[in-house]
């Protein structure tokens, strides 16, 4: 049967037709598997580009009523495919003479299948509903329609009742026993109990027994709403209902869906109330999803906003860890609803017309919430500024400094601090350029060296001032710093001297080389958005550092350099290939190394080192590459634990304790290398691999305007995990350091082996590492956690 797949494609039209007819014959076979295979063949043929004839449609529709699940499933797919391929064909409805579009009919058929016996067919039907965007609105709106009746009388659904009470102005009347009492008598003839078409398909789908179907329905509802505004408004009620689903995944999905369509709809007060009810949810995912949703939605009235703010504050009181997400949410709400915020300002800030109210504590998260809301609204509504009191303005400048991304620049008239930051921004890039130009123009090496030192200082400072060029500045600073280190090393002639092996200086040199290598790795892995030239410069510099290391190992130590040499040669090849591919000119040193290595026949460490030695001695620092604004440095900010807790976490020694870690990672390319680094007071260090599922991609919600490009979504993450800490008994509580790091041991395996400085025991989670491992690159400053392992109590 599947053999029918083969002779398709470029065949002449007629033979393909005949083949299809032949396959079509088998769709009436008595064996269910044969029937389903026949339909599947049609599908495959269709997928391969030969269009199915629309005439099979009626036949396929019959197969939807088949006894067997497999057949119905495939037939459903076919109906969908046909509906998508020939949307505009007209077909006549069986009983009446009416003609309708094929896609509408197919849509109706798919809707019917949502009442199917089998769960798999239902799921499939629910999925397909969402993809049929061509269907006409009339049919679409029917899917949410379900006539209610009670004892033959028409009844309003709860949604309609809610809507009525909103429009009639009597809200919260309280429900009586017979509140939903049926009204007019329904004409028995006019009621159709069997849904003929798309009627109520989504109502059924959303009430389905299985979460798979419900999930698919929510998805479909969402994607259809995106295409049809009117439908979006209608489906809102249903999505809001889904917030109450028993399974968390479904709730989350409903929230996500609502976030997506909330741009197109305006929330009513009663709907908002339900949504806000879900804020009390225990699950952090649900709450953060809701925050995101609230920041995207549009509210209809001042009452809504007030309710929303109150609920968010309540929520904050209950779950203090939601601080940041709440702030962001309020920022967006403020931006979106300045005119609704305006009348609320006096109330929110507790401004009294006659009396001075006490100044609130600016560290209070709830108060910060309100300030963020108000300031963001004030950005678009200048009249608000006059309402602020003296202390509010003071708090503004404080917050503007501490949370620049949450508090916008306000045009305060006559204030001391107008937009001075804006002027700086224009200058930094130029300053950066000129700085590097100066270095290049330096007349002699000595001056150049001094200039480089100065430049490194300046750039480091620059990085802290201006976020736009921070990445590039840090990159250049690091590059320059490493160059300087290299120069210093080279100028110190000891490095090639065997006699220094055990001396104090020998140690210094060894450490310097390690540091140099770590700088290289940082340059290579810590930055994203590097251009080819930058990468080439880094690679070449790394080559140089490796060469230095090789020579040092060969000349000044007695350990084996075989592996290292091999790695070095590999790196040479790699770099050479890279340069050729990118069409870049190698630097002087690199070029000479290439040349030298090309001539070298023996690849033993000795000769290689011997030939490298003179090259290193004559090399000069390469100029840093041109600044590239797109460069971003990988950073991490740990928000939880805060490190300010005095009470020690107590646990039984030898067992583990979980420390909640909440961190935001920016510009991290390869999350597989991410580790949580735990350093104990006894200098023991553990690298823990966080679970993949604990990393959640951060959406663009926190983007600071337009400076963050769209590609950040796949390099920015939020790490929400539990760090397991364990230790033997201590006499008193001590602090441990928790930080985030990149472990490049796997990526740079050759290097790790060759340095001979690391003692590798394995790369799996929780393995202790030597402190000075160059392959572990810190991403952030460690946070201190106060812990105290207690001895096991005996005899309970």
């Amino acid at each position, binding site marked *: 049967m599947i053999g029918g797949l083969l002779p398709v494609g470029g065949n002449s039209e007629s033979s393909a037709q005949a083949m299809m007819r*032949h396959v079509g*014959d*088998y769709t*009436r*076979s*008595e064996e269910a598997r044969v029937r389903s295979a026949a339909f599947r063949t049609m599908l495959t043929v269709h997928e391969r580009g030969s269009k199915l004839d629309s005439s099979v449609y009626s036949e396929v529709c019959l197969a939807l009523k088949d*006894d067997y699940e497999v057949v119905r499933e495939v037939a459903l797919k076919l109906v969908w495919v046909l509906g998508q391929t020939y949307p505009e064909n007209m077909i006549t409805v069986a009983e009446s003479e009416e003609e309708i579009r094929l896609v509408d009919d197919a849509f109706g058929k798919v809707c019917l299948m949502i*009442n199917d*016996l089998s769960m798999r067919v239902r799921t499939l039907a629910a999925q397909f509903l969402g993809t049929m965007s061509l269907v006409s609105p009339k049919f679409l709106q029917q899917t949410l329609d*379900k*006539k*209610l*009746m*009670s*004892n*033959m009388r028409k*009844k309003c*659904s*709860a*949604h309609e009742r809610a809507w009525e009470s909103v429009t009639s102005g009597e809200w919260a009347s*309280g*429900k*009586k*026993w017979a509140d939903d009492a049926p009204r007019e008598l329904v004409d*028995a003839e006019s*009621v*159709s*109990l*069997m*849904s003929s078409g798309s009627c109520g398909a989504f*109502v059924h789908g*959303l*009430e*389905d*027994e*299985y*979460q798979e179907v419900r999930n698919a329905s929510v998805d479909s509802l969402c994607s259809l709403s995106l295409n049809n505004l009117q439908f979006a408004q209608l489906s809102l009620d*249903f999505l809001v*209902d*889904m917030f*109450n*689903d*028993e*399974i968390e995944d479904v709730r989350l999905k409903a929230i996500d869906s609502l976030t997506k369509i909330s741009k197109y709809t305006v929330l009513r007060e009663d709907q908002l109330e*339900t949504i806000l*009810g879900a804020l*009390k*949810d*225990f*699950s952090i995912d649900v709450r953060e999803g809701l925050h995101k949703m609230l920041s995207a939605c549009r509210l209809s009235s001042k009452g809504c906003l007030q309710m929303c703010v109150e609920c968010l504050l309540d929520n904050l009181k*209950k779950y203090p860890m939601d601080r940041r997400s709440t702030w962001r949410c309020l920022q967006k709400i403020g931006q979106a609803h300045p005119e609704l915020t305006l009348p609320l300002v006096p109330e929110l800030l507790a401004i009294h017309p006659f009396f001075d109210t006490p100044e609130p504590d600016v560290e209070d998260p709830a108060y910060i919430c309100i300030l963020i809301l108000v300031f963001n609204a004030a950005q678009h509504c200048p009249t608000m500024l006059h309402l602020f009191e003296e202390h509010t303005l003071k708090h503004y400048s404080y917050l503007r400094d501490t949370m620049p991304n949450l508090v916008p620049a306000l045009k305060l008239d006559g204030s001391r601090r107008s937009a001075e930051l804006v002027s700086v921004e224009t200058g930094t890039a130029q300053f950066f350029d000129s700085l590097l130009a100066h270095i290049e123009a330096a007349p002699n090496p000595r001056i150049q060296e001094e200039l480089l030192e100065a430049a490194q200082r300046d750039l480091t400072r620059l990085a802290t001032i201006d976020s736009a060029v921070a990445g590039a500045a840090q990159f250049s600073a690091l590059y320059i710093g490493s160059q300087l280190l290299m120069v210093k090393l080279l100028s110190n002639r000891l490095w090639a001297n065997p006699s220094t092996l055990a001396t104090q200086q020998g140690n210094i040199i060894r450490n310097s080389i390690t540091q140099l290598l770590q700088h290289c790795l940082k340059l290579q892995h810590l930055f994203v958005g590097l251009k080819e030239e930058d990468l080439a410069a880094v690679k070449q510099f790394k080559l140089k550092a490796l060469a230095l290391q090789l020579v040092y190992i060969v000349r000044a130590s007695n350990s084996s350099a075989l592996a290292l040499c091999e790695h070095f040669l590999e790196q040479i090849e790699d770099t050479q290939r890279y340069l050729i591919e990118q069409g870049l000119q190698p630097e002087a040193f690199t070029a000479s190394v290439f040349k030298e290595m090309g001539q070298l026949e023996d690849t033993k460490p000795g000769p290689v080192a011997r030939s490298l030695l003179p090259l290193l001695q004559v090399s000069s620092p390469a100029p840093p590459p041109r600044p590239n604004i797109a460069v971003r440095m990988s950073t991490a900010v740990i928000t939880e634990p805060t490190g300010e807790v005095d009470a020690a976490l107590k646990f039984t020694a030898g067992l583990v304790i979980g420390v909640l870690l909440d961190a935001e990672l920016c510009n991290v390319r390869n999350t597989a290398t991410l580790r949580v680094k735990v350093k104990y007071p006894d200098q023991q260090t553990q690298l823990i691999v966080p679970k993949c599922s604990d990393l959640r991609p951060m959406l663009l919600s926190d983007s600071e305007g337009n400076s963050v490009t769209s590609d950040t979504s796949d390099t920015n993450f939020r790490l929400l995990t539990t760090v397991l800490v364990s230790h033997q008994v201590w006499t008193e509580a001590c602090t441990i350091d928790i930080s985030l790091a990149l472990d490049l041991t796997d990526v740079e395996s050759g290097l790790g082996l060759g340095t001979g400085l690391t003692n590798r025991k394995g790369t799996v989670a929780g393995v202790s590492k030597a402190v000075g491992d160059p392959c572990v690159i810190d991403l952030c400053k460690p946070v201190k956690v106060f812990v105290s392992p207690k001895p096991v109590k005996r005899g309970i």
Partner: protein
Amino acid sequence: MPEIKITPLGAGQDVGRSCILLSMGGKNIMLDCGMHMGFNDERRFPDFTYIAPDGPLTSYIDCVIISHFHLDHCGALPYFTEMVGYTGPIYMTHPTKAIAPILLEDMRKVAVERKGESNFFTSQNIKDCMKKVVAVTLHQSVMVDGHLEIKAYYAGHVLGAAMFWIRVGSQSVVYTGDYNMTPDRHLGAAWIDKCRPDLLISESTYATTIRDSKRCRERDFLKKIHECVDRGGKVLIPVFALGRAQELCILLETYWERMNLKVPVYFAVGLTEKANNYYKMFITWTNQKIRKTFVQRNMFDFKHIKPFDKAYIDNPGAMVVFATPGMLHAGLSLQIFKKWAPNENNMVIMPGFCVVGTVGHKVLNGAKKIEFENRQTVEVKMSVQYMSFSAHADAKGIMQLIQYCQPKNVMLVHGEAAKMEFLKEKIKKEFDLECYMPANGETCVVSTSMTIPLDVSLKLLKTEAQKHNSLPPDPKRPRVMHGVLVMKDSSMCLMDVDDACKEAGINRHLVRFTSTLRMEDPGPASKTAEKLLHLIKTRLKDWHVQLTEGSISVESVLVKVEGSEEEQKNVYVSWDNQDEELGSYILGLLKTMGH
């Protein structure tokens, strides 16, 4: 014509004491054996004298099937088995078997100890009765005897509720009991395959209702409780011990979990605790969520819901209490109600229907002052809410079930006559099915189509199938099987001709018919034969027609032309008995060709 006879002894155009007699193919089956809660005299039990005026009923009834544990479906069972004296098999699902005796015992206590009735069945009766029960699992096909087969399907409604498919010979009936087509917090939706029974006997409690989404109701319920608890009020939820109570518990439990609430929730112990244990045990009968959670913990091991103690009534602060009974007519729930009613912070939520005359009914109708028998009055200041959580299929659900199982006839029971009438019309109109709704004691006869089962020898089937499958399937092409019908003893079978001959020890005789036609056609005989061949070929396109030695043969039909070059020629047409049709067709063709 074979028939299926149905006589409802209860639940015919009525709700309560479900008891339906079904007889088909010589078997008599009793579907459910319930009691009516509204009566206290002999009317509460079905009239078993209908089956036989007196004496043992065992010989009249082949088996009894109980769909679920509600008393209006199983309440009369001990009476029927122990006092009327039925000793045959009784079938029910495992959860029903476990829970039904608890309910029966409870009812017995109320009837005998509270109301002081005599002549009621005893605890021992219940135990003895349960010993006769055979438990079945879902989708397990049970042969009651050689001809009677039953199979249970999931029905939702309450834990262990099942629909039963019953087959005798070629006739089959599906009895739904009570069922629910929309899933709730602890149970899934009813499910049945396309079994195409001759008759579907469906309940029709909500024949004229189409319900709104459950979620709105649940949300309202939870919101009300949450608000009340937040302002420090106490919430009383009067429930009956089984069924809805568990659903509400699950609902509240998950909400408490989600919202991380700390307010205590209590459940008045007693009957319920025992029943909860069974709910814990029969996890496979619950819905997806509970079954999935079971991997970590049993949802019925409530974390937040604790047993209630009477001393807690006066405890300060917010709390939620589930208490029995559900209509506030007696017992603990009424006691709590009396204490809490005067405080406007408190709330009572009635999750179900209340019978006229109970305190629950008065409260729901807005009574502000309620007088009790000992002249004591209680002011009702607490807020009163009504939420309907019922688990019957609505009109849409019933239609959906009919669509699922595709019966040939439908019968409605367990509902009010007027409502049934409406649904009956709808079923007739939309499915074009015959629909019945007999009253109690009224016998309803459903005639089914006659089918005669026939054994066909394997060889015959295989050759036919081979032949058929070699061509692409075409529903229009008839499938013909050629064989001999052999009647042996009481069974019939279709056999290959040769085999039949061999078995019977008879030599096979072939009967040939020969007919001679005269026709006038100048020219040699072979020429005429060719002409005929052409004619036959054009008429019988799909057949294999060939000309051998002057005679044309199609299958076993031979057409031979004889005669010299004279005008007159004799055309012999001869055919086998089995090709009679073809032969006479060709003969007719030849006869009429001149015209």
